[in-house]
C-alpha cells in the first residue's frame, strides 16, 4: 500500500511500500531536486523521483526532495528516519 501523509506544516512524506519494480533509472541521484508536483498519482510521483520499493521521501514545502530514504527494514524505523530527514531539512523534528 501507499501512504501519503502530512508531517508538520505542509511537509509531505511519501512512503512507497508496494512491490513495484522501479524504472531503470531509479538509482539516479534526485535528492535536492524539485519533485514534479504536477504528477498527481503517488505511484507516478514515486516513479518520477526514483523512489524504490519499501522506501520513503521527504518533500519540502517548495516541492524539493529533501530526503529519499531507502529500505528501512521495519516500519518502526520510519519515525526516526523521517525525524532525521526533517531535522536536517528544517532544523525541526516532530519527534522532539
Amino acid at each position, binding site marked *: 500500500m501507499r501512504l501519503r501523509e502530512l508531517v508538520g506544516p505542509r511537509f509531505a512524506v511519501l512512503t512507497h511500500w508496494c512491490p513495484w519494480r522501479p524504472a531503470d533509472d531509479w*538509482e539516479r541521484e534526485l*535528492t535536492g*531536486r524539485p519533485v514534479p508536483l504536477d504528477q498527481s498519482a503517488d505511484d507516478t510521483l514515486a516513479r518520477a523521483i526514483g523512489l524504490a520499493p519499501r522506501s520513503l521521501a521527504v518533500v519540502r*514545502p517548495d516541492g524539493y526532495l529533501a530526503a529519499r530514504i531507502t529500505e528501512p527494514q521495519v516500519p518502526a*524505523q520510519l519515525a*526516526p528516519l523521517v525525524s532525521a530527514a526533517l531535522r*536536517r531539512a528544517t*532544523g*525541526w523534528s516532530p519527534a522532539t
Partner: protein
Amino acid sequence: MVIAGAGPVGMVAALLLARCGVPTVVLEEQPRRIAVGSRSICVQRDSLDILERAGVGAAVAESGVTWTRGRTYYREHQVAEITFPVLGDSAFPPFVNTPQSVVELLLEDRIAAEPLVEVRRGQRVVGVEQDADGVTVSTSDSEVLGSHLVGADGGHSAVRESLGLPFPGTSYSDKFLIADLRADLGLTVPERRFYFDPPWNPGRQVLLHPQPGGVWRIDWQVPHDFDLDAERAGDGLDRRIRAVVGHGDYEIIWLSVYRFHQRRVPAMRVGRVLLAGDAAHVMSPFGARGLNSGICDADNAAWKIALDRAGRAGPGLLASYDTERGAAAEENLRVTGETMRFLVPGTDADRAHRTDVLTRAVTDEHARDQIDSGRLAEPHHYPDSPLTTPVHPGAVPGAEPAAARRALPGRPAGVGHAAA
C-alpha cells in the same frame, strides 16, 4: 512580516506566506500600478507550479500562448528550426508567453481577496534596522515592524542600499529597443524568430516572440547612442517595424529602450532580511531567467520564513536561502553571460567565434547546436544544500550500505548512487 515591493516577486512571496498563515504588509513605492508593456514575457512550467500555489497559475497559463516552432536566421539564411509538437500531459505547458503586466494584475486580484496581505502604496523604503527580535522598516512617512523583511523592490532596491550591500557586475553598452505590436504576420502556429545580423539591422540581432491577442514582442539590438525620439520623429521607426511585419497594418502598444546588466548581490540574506528577484540579481533576458528565478526566490524564502516565525526552524534554515538561491543566481548569471558573449561579443576572439559558428551553421547542422540565443532554465538543483540529506550509507540512521541494496532481489546489479 514585511515585504518591500509589490511587483510579481513580492506579491508571490506575500501570497505564499499567506498560504502558511503568515500576515504581511507589502510596501510599494509606486502610488498605483503601471501595468503596461510586456517586459518579462515567458513564464516557465516550474514558475507556473509556484504561481498555482499562490492561486494564479492556471489563470496565468490560460492567459498566455505557447509557441511551438522556433526559427533562427543568419543574414538571409534560415539556419535552425525547432518544433515542439507535443506539449505533454502535465497540468501546465512547458512555458507560456504572457505580458508581465498580466501576471501582475492577476496577482493583484488574488491579493485583493487575501485578508492576510495588506498592500500600502506610495511607501518608499528609506531605512532598515534589525535586531534579534525583528525588523523595523522606515518609509518616507511611517515605520513598520515585522519579524522578517523580503526585499523585492527591484534592481534599484532601497532595501539592498539600506543594508549597505554592493551590486557588482557588468552592464552592456548596446541598448535594446523593445516593442509590443499588434499585427497579422500570417503565421499558422505561434512562432518565435531570432534574426542574427539581418540585412535590415546589420551587425546586430532582432528577436520576435508571440504574445496573446495577435500581439508580437520585438526586440531590436541598437547602438548605445540610439535615440528613440529621433527615430519616431522621422520615418526610421516605421521602416524598422516594416522590415519585420511587412506592409500590413500594425498598432504600437508599447515601446521602450533598455540596457542589459549582469549583477548579483554578494549575500541574499542579512539576518532577518532576504533579498529576492531583481533586488538580488539582474541578468539579460535571453533565457527568460529573470522573473522566473525571482519567483523561485519568493518560493524558497516564504516557507523558511514561515517556519522561522513559528519557531520550527533550525538556526541554519534562513541561511540556507542564500546558499540555495545564491547558487541559482550564480548559475543563471553564468548561463546568460555565455549567451551575451555570443549575442554581444566583447572581444575579437568572441566575435570570431560567433561569425564562425553562424557562417558554418548555414550548411553544417552540427554548428547549429553552438548557436546561443538564450537557454531556458531548469529548476536549480540543491544537492549540496545543507537541507538536503545526503544519500550515502550512514547519512540516515538505518540506511543500509549500497552493496546490500544492490544485492537485493530484483535490483540491477552494479548500479549504485554516485555518492555511494
